[in-house]
């Protein structure tokens, strides 16, 4: 009574897509932190998983969340693509929902520049900065 249709140990994994040459399948590299017993330091250990990607929407370099399938789909494929966390080149910041590249926002944060200019000049008038003569030092 061998467990041929047993489920996988890893239910949810996150990894980076490294290959999409197979039809409807993405090759995903998953890194886990493993403790080196002598140095007592954590290092990344890699493992490749194959994931079923029905719509072939993955490109190499995407960060992807995989979900374990209830049973093996084929000899190597035991996971399916749940969602693309970060699409390569089109990273969306989850806090603001805007497109982002490294440390910069690609979309402008403020509404539009014209309103900002008008309010700036109004604010300057309100401040009433005049060039007064400096007091004599004595």
């Amino acid at each position: 009574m061998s467990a041929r249709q047993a489920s996988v140990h890893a239910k949810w994994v996150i990894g980076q897509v490294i290959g999409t040459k197979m039809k409807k399948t993405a090759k995903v590299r998953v890194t886990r932190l493993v403790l080196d017993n002598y140095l007592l330091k954590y290092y990344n250990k890699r493992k490749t998983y194959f994931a079923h990607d029905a719509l072939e929407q993955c490109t190499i370099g995407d960060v992807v969340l995989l979900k374990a399938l209830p049973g093996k789909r084929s000899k190597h494929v035991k996971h399916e693509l749940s969602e693309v966390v970060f699409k390569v080149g089109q990273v969306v910041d989850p806090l603001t929902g805007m497109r982002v590249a490294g440390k910069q926002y690609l979309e402008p944060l403020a509404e539009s520049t014209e309103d900002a200019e008008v309010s700036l000049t109004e604010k300057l008038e309100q401040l009433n900065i005049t060039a007064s003569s400096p007091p004599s030092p004595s």
Partner: protein
Amino acid sequence: MPMKGRFPIRRTLEYLQKGEIVFKKSVKIMTVNYNTHGDLSEGARKFVFFNIPQIQYKNPWVQIMMFKNMTPSPFVRFYLDDGEQVLVDVEGKHHKEITHHVKKILGKTDQVLEAEALAKMELSNPANFGHKKYFLRECMSEVEGQVPHPGLVPLPKEMTGKYRAKMAATSDE
């Protein structure tokens, strides 16, 4: 002869075992996005440097991944077993604040941890004897003050079986 590295105390078992955060069973993946430069990510950087090894030590089955310089603001994201995602904004916070916050939202409480430790202690009774792997002592001769094993120290003549048998035989006659 001091240890090598910047803060080598991070690499001691005592430091790793002192980790406070033990995640609930439903947490499967933890993702930290932070930046390598900038004051706002300073807390996140310290969190990754000091606290991530402790967290991974206490939660060996949680996958932890770090992403650098992907977004302008740092955040921590957790992926739970039922598909739920928890997003924690970490910008400008001190690394201790981050650990307290994470412990509060997704960590097991101290009460639960104590109860688990107690239950684990109850399983193994130190008064039992048996194989070295599971029990403290194998034989009574290992206890101080008891008769030692005759293989190590010869028994006094009066305790040996052949003397007793001889005495019993001569007294019967």
